């Protein structure tokens, strides 16, 4: 396509020099908005946050979660892919042997420092097992202590709310067992958890 140039129009003539026409046009617009928002249909994009929730896009990269297999074990095989790709180096993984022999390898430690995380989503792309996802739809993480932001393996569940859990330390005997974890099955459609 050829280069098309358009010269912008500088309107600065007698009509402008009178001040009033433009002020009246402006006033009519602002008054229109004023009355419409006062009585008519509101044209407001502001969200009254805690009472109303914004619509969160299906692709929104919110807080991470670790998915589980159908039998309840973590999908993660501690391959260190996400830890390698992470640009902010916020993931820390330690691999271990699982007592259940059907599981090859699993993360004994899987920590995400949510304060370091830049929410780029590269870990999700890099994961070969679809074990980490950011589709929780959690848009705000506002806690009062830095420790609360250190998400350990077992806290990276779907509906986890750290405010309701005081004990954020992972204990080794606290291994995920199929029965107790079944309520935390991954949300396979990828829609935000309510």
């Amino acid at each position, binding site marked *: 396509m050829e280069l098309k140039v358009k010269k912008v129009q500088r309107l600065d003539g007698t009509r402008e020099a009178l001040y009033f026409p433009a002020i009246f046009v402006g006033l009519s617009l602002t008054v229109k908005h004023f009355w419409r928002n006062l009585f008519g249909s509101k044209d407001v994009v502001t969200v009254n946050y805690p009472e109303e929730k914004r619509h969160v896009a299906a692709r929104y990269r919110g807080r991470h979660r670790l998915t589980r297999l159908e039998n309840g074990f973590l999908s993660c095989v501690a391959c260190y*892919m996400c830890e390698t790709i992470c640009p902010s180096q916020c993931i820390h993984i330690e691999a271990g042997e699982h007592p259940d022999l059907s599981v090859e390898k699993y993360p004994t430690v899987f920590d995400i420092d949510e304060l370091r995380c830049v929410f780029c989503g590269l870990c999700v792309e890099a994961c070969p097992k679809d074990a980490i996802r950011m589709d929780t739809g959690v848009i705000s993480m506002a806690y009062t202590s830095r420790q609360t932001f250190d998400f350990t393996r077992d806290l990276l569940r779907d509906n986890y709310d750290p405010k309701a859990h005081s004990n954020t330390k992972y204990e080794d005997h606290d291994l995920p067992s199929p029965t107790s974890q079944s309520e935390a099955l991954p949300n396979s459609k990828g829609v935000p958890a309510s």
Partner: protein
Amino acid sequence: MTDMNLLQSRIEGDSSGEDFSASVMSIEIGPAHPAMHGIVRFTTHLDGELIVGMDTEIGYLHRGFEKESENSKWIQVIPYTDRLNYVSPLLNNIGYSMAVEKLYGIEAPRRAEFTRVIMGEISRITDHLTCLGAAAMEIGAFTFFLWFIKAREYLWELVEEMTGARLTTNWTRFGGNSTDLPDGFLTELADRLAKLKDVMEECDKLLTRNKIFIDRVKDIGSFSKEDALSYGFTGPLLRACGIPYDVRRADSYSVYDELDFEIPVGSTGDCFDRFLVRMEEIRQSINIIEQAADKIPEGPFMTDERMLHYPDKKDVYGNIEGLIDHFKLVMEGHQPPAGEIYMPIEGGNGEIGFYLVSDGSGDPVRVRLRPPCFNFVAAMPAMTIGHYVADIVPIFGSVNMIGGELDR
């Protein structure tokens, strides 16, 4: 103007017996000042209210983008580029990815390019909306600002639908994009553009012909063509001087040569021209988006070159070759061939140029960003001296300094 030597002695010489310095008052404008939307410091010398001298200090937002990039893998730079010009993050994403693609010597599929055009122009609109709104707000037109912010909200929701984040998009990849258009995106886009047009029309009526506004911006910060070129201006500021230089046309990249649009130019390069040029560019961008949305072809949104993108998940799960590729790509990173390239694209502020040097390994040797507003801020003294202190506000507003891009 006053005699230069006298002025110099006035500024420097408060130790000399005759107290000339009394009439020149130096005043710090910035970093913690409402008119500085980035963080920048102007030490302004005032004679009465007239600016007779100015010294600029930048670097308050220096985060070491280039150093960090050299210590990352190629792909890990993409999230960093979000934070350069943070009101048009997608353009930085696109610029960087296209630079790496140029280094590889490949091109993204056509669908990806069209999507990039759409998203890039959305980002340009958000950039201009922010810039114009903020500049107008600072000269008192608060309503204009908030109507523009409302319009920007429409677009950022689209960006969120598309990329999964509003600002920290991290959207493009080498050889394509991380995501394709979501369902119903184009109808939603048309909807929002219609709303945006309404807002544009209202705001145009509200401000453009208002004499108070015209007085504030007309003949303020005028810049001649020669000076603008010498200072390396690009983008709306150069076009306001009357030079139709637009990288989209000058070095036609992506699919811009298939799209029909006009390049708005001004005549005197003052703040009024910059305002009008930006307003017109928003309209042109809407036009471009509409055309691109019509023309967007079906097809893949990611290149099928091996070792450029992660294999399909079914390959990763299902066959060993895919798994190995995946592991190699994550562990070693992308390895563009050795060489160096400079890739310019038209950003919100002007020419964003990425100069990349690769030695063939997974780590970049050099990632250099040419920040467009660096030149503008360098020219701030030239633009402001001889104006009143209140004129810093429209001049600096029209410069659209973005701290993340300026200081990197």
